[in-house]
């Protein structure tokens, strides 16, 4: 009896070679009569990660599809000055507990990274899986000021926001958020209107879409006549999304296809949207790489500003571009204008253990993924 080496996922066909082969064949049948390579942008870092980890990118290139990574990486697009503000607190004040997701702690700034700085006495950094852990810490350690540093897109925003709802209801005095909330549809608009890139279609982020539904992408199809498909995260899901986009290109009829219907409802998650609406308000946001985009971020409404770390601790967040003066070209990578290999620092000064910019730090940063996963030329 051979040991069980493969995992038995619920619905495990999504990962098999057979399914991938069939879908790639179907894609090839569509691209055969089209000018290739077609350039499709996947916006979500998790899509980028799946494409690379499964080794699909070279196989997609063989069937005429070039995947370009977009700015769907919260660690990559959150400017340094957020981290620096948190570092100042952690290092300068006692009895501070900073809770955050793993990636954020490795971003190198002028003041070091969250992981490497030495906290003030009584202060510390805690990596959490869920923002709920931060609320629990606030309850368990009433003498500490707990700050949840949350950077994320619409998938993560409702959960983080829920902690404010809970903190408000429980009258928690020692809990607050430093938020870096980014919205996908305005970023898409900015990329398209930036006019710098020749993208033939989009793969939309499946779990962002589970929250916001299908409608916010309509402008891409209707106003800009670009095809797109909402896709899930198994290899077969992404290939289904790509197949749909290629079919739209052939038919000349761009739309917003939903290829992740088992998870994404057309209206999205209404409850999550309600929480966002109740506690948050749109704001201009300064995206690393893309620059400032109006109404592309969210912040706490004035009536909940007591839970905003910026107000509670009088944090000074920088204005304008936060790019340190280095030769790092993360900004252009995030816009899909250049490949990581086009950056002069890539693979030389900038490597995973000595990252010069966020795209090499974040696990779904295009540069780290390129470095880790793309050393392989096609061997077929």
């Amino acid at each position, binding site marked *: 009896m051979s040991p069980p080496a493969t*995992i*038995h*996922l*619920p*619905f495990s*066909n999504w990962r098999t070679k*057979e*399914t991938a082969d*069939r*879908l790639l*064949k*179907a894609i090839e049948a569509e691209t055969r009569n089209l000018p290739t390579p077609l350039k499709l942008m996947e916006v*979500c*870092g*998790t*899509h980028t990660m799946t494409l690379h980890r499964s080794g699909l990118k070279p196989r997609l290139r063989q069937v005429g599809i070039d995947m370009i990574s977009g700015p*769907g*990486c*919260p660690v990559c697009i959150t400017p340094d000055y957020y981290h620096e503000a948190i570092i100042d607190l952690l290092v300068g004040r006692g009895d501070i507990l900073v809770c955050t*997701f793993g990636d954020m702690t490795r971003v190198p700034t002028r003041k070091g990274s969250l992981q490497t700085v030495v906290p003030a006495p009584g202060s510390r950094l805690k990596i959490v*899986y*869920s*923002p*709920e*852990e931060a609320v629990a810490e606030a309850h368990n350690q009433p003498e500490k000021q707990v700050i949840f540093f949350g950077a*994320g*897109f619409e*998938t*993560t925003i*409702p*959960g983080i926001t*829920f902690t404010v*709802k809970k903190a408000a209801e429980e009258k928690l005095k020692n809990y607050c958020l430093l938020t870096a909330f980014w919205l996908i549809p305005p970023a898409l608009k900015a990329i398209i209107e930036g006019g710098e890139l020749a993208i033939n279609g989009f793969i939309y*982020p*499946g*779990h*962002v879409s*589970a*929250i916001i539904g299908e409608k916010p992408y309509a402008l891409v199809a209707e106003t800009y006549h670009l095809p797109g498909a909402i896709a899930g*995260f198994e290899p*077969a899901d992404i290939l*289904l999304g790509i197949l749909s986009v290629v079919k739209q290109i052939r038919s000349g009829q761009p739309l917003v296809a939903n290829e992740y*219907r*088992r*998870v*994404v*409802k057309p209206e999205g*998650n209404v*409850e*999550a949207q309600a*929480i966002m609406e109740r506690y948050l308000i749109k704001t201009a946001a300064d995206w690393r790489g893309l620059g400032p985009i109006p109404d592309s971020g969210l912040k706490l409404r004035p009536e909940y500003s007591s839970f905003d770390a910026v107000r509670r601790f009088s944090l000074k967040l920088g204005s304008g571009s936060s790019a340190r003066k280095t030769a790092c070209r993360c900004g252009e990578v995030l816009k899909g204008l250049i490949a990581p290999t086009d950056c002069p620092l890539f693979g030389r000064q900038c490597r995973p253990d000595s990252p010069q910019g966020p795209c090499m730090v974040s696990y*779904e940063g295009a540069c780290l993924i390129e470095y880790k996963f793309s050393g392989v030329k096609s061997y077929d």
Partner: protein
Amino acid sequence: MCLAIPGKVISLNDNGTGQVDYLGSQVLANFSLLPDIKVGDWVIVHAGFAISRLDQKEARRTLKLFQELEKQS
């Protein structure tokens, strides 16, 4: 920004949380974004929050599509 797993709800607490099983590991998930969730439902869990209920019919439909692709090729 979308890392999440499809798990089965195996228990519900009365504070809006519950246990979701994924391949034998259990994660404590918050269901406040999914009212009317029941034990036995399949959900997508991201950063400790259940963000969507899995539609079994749609899942089966897609799996059938894979089989049909084989017949076409």
